[in-house]
């Protein structure tokens, strides 16, 4: 493997994208994604990265450019956050329907208002149903690794779908930490050249982005859904092969101390690391507590999730987005419906916290655990708690 260096995670991400030999980067700067895009533009300007950097006039244009470049067979990357994603939204839904393997890093940030630049998951939850493969990362090393993973999975001819790597804004994007780089040889071994399934080529004309009459629309959507579901074996295989090359083993659902746990925390993204400290502390106190982290958010890993919660009596779901007037946070809502009707269904308690970058410490998780333990009776879907709110 390559060298171990101390570097800001965003800069390392940009250098991973360079090592992945990207052809086209189209992006518009927005906090906290900025450092990734700035560094890519620097690498292109300095001649270190032979790619087209297209400084578009908006995120809507960024994703439109990405669709065009991916359609002609160029390895394509973009990056955004929050309001940028909102402006991009229209085209975000089109990319997977065209089966274009674009890679996006989403530096997760809350949606305004009030105007906020800080981290939570309201941006990604706003496009939950966009049809992209979606994964979450927990630290700088995972971001670096998942850049390679993202291109490999998205461009896999059996998959050919766009992929979002979720990276917590600031909490991960603006931190310097040690990262083990891959050497170029390992990248080449892991990531084959992009061989698109269909290419937009005037000499061999095809139609992309056609009009879909009601008579064909449902069939098109079912096949799109099937494509996303069918991507899972390729995703798992890409992680397994990475494990062989790097010694770092990623899975759709990851657990810590969950085997004999009665209560588990459930998180996505960088909160998992801090939760692990709370789990250690609660274990020291003799409490049967563990944790589950969802790495693969779409396609949802049903089988792996059910297996992970086998024997668990209570799940404390930490949500970082709100479904206003709905069933708590979006993660809790999904987990409740997927466990509905299962034998010995665990009790689910739902905490909304870490909104717009509010710090959540190990002590806070311990407090959530204690609050959960004290909750009596049926915990209904509408019983969710804004943790730490001042009233």
């Amino acid at each position, binding site marked *: 493997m390559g060298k171990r260096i101390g570097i800001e995670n965003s800069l390392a991400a940009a250098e991973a994208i360079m090592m992945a030999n990207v052809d086209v980067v189209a992006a518009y700067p927005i906090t906290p994604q900025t450092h990734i895009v700035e560094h890519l533009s620097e690498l292109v300007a300095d001649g270190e990265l032979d790619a087209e950097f297209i400084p578009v006039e908006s995120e809507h244009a960024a994703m439109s450019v990405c669709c065009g470049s991916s359609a002609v067979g160029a390895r394509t990357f973009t990056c955004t956050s929050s309001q940028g994603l909102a402006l991009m939204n229209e085209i975000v839904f089109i990319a997977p329907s065209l089966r274009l393997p674009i890679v996006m890093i989403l530096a997760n940030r809350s949606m305004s208002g009030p105007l906020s*630049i800080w981290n939570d998951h309201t941006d990604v939850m706003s496009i939950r149903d966009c049809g992209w493969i979606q994964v979450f990362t927990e630290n700088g090393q995972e971001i670096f690794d998942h850049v390679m993973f993202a291109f490999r999975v998205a461009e896999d001819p059996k998959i050919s779908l766009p992929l979002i790597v979720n990276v917590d804004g600031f909490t991960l994007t603006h931190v*310097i930490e040690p990262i083990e780089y891959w050497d170029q040889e390992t990248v080449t071994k892991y990531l084959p050249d992009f061989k698109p399934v269909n290419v937009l080529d005037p000499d061999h004309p095809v139609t992309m982005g056609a009009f879909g009459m009601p008579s064909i629309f449902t069939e098109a959507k079912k096949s799109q859904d099937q494509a996303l579901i069918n991507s899972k074996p390729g995703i798992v295989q890409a992680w397994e092969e990475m494990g062989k090359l790097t010694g770092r083993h990623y899975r759709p659902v990851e657990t810590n101390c969950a085997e004999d746990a009665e209560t588990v925390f459930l998180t996505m993204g960088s909160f998992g690391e801090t939760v692990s400290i709370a789990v250690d502390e609660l274990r020291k106190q003799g409490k049967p507590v563990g944790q589950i982290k969802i790495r693969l958010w779409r396609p949802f890993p049903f089988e792996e999730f059910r297996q992970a919660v086998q024997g668990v009596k209570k799940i404390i779901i930490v949500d970082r987005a709100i479904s206003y007037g709905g069933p708590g946070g979006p993660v809790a809502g999904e987990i409740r419906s997927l466990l509905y009707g299962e034998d010995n269904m665990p009790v689910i308690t739902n905490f909304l916290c870490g909104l717009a970058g509010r710090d959540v410490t190990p002590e806070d998780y311990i407090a959530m655990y204690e609050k959960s333990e004290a909750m009596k009776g049926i915990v209904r879907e509408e019983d969710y708690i804004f943790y730490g709110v001042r009233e």
Partner: protein
Amino acid sequence: MIEVRFHGRGGQGAVTSAELLASAAINEGKYAQAFPSFGPERRGAPVIAFCRIDDKPIRIRTNIYHPDLVLVLDPSILRIVNVSNGLKEDGILITNTRYSGEEIRKELGIKHTLATVNATLIATEEMGLPITNTTMLGSLLKARNILPADSLIGPLNKRFGRIAQKNINAFQRAYKETDILI
């Protein structure tokens, strides 16, 4: 694990200071994190930055509430920010000041060990600028030897290129001229 909180004013390089310290620790084979207090960057306003150093992987991703060391780049901050807030009992407050440790202790009523250095003077003489972020790192390593002093030379060279030597001189002078008051 050693946790350090940096106080400065926007534009004085507190974040750079935290980054250099983390880079030096990582080059030494340790684990480290450096990060700003996330928010809008405002030149001149009080800002904070953080650094954690450990021999094993660091899992926590929160702000630092109980630092082992507090580093103050700008003496004007001492009067407007409670810089010793949360500082561990055996922690050290390291500050740029032209006053002595006794005078600072009396003026601010701080019970912790104090490390003082006139970093503004050193930086002005060595670099021609009163920017104290690299100077104060010398003082930090004198106050507690969390890393070998020469571990900063590599990161300083990498960061500052042709003006690195001036920063290294200021860093080394602060290391020598720091007074410790237990």
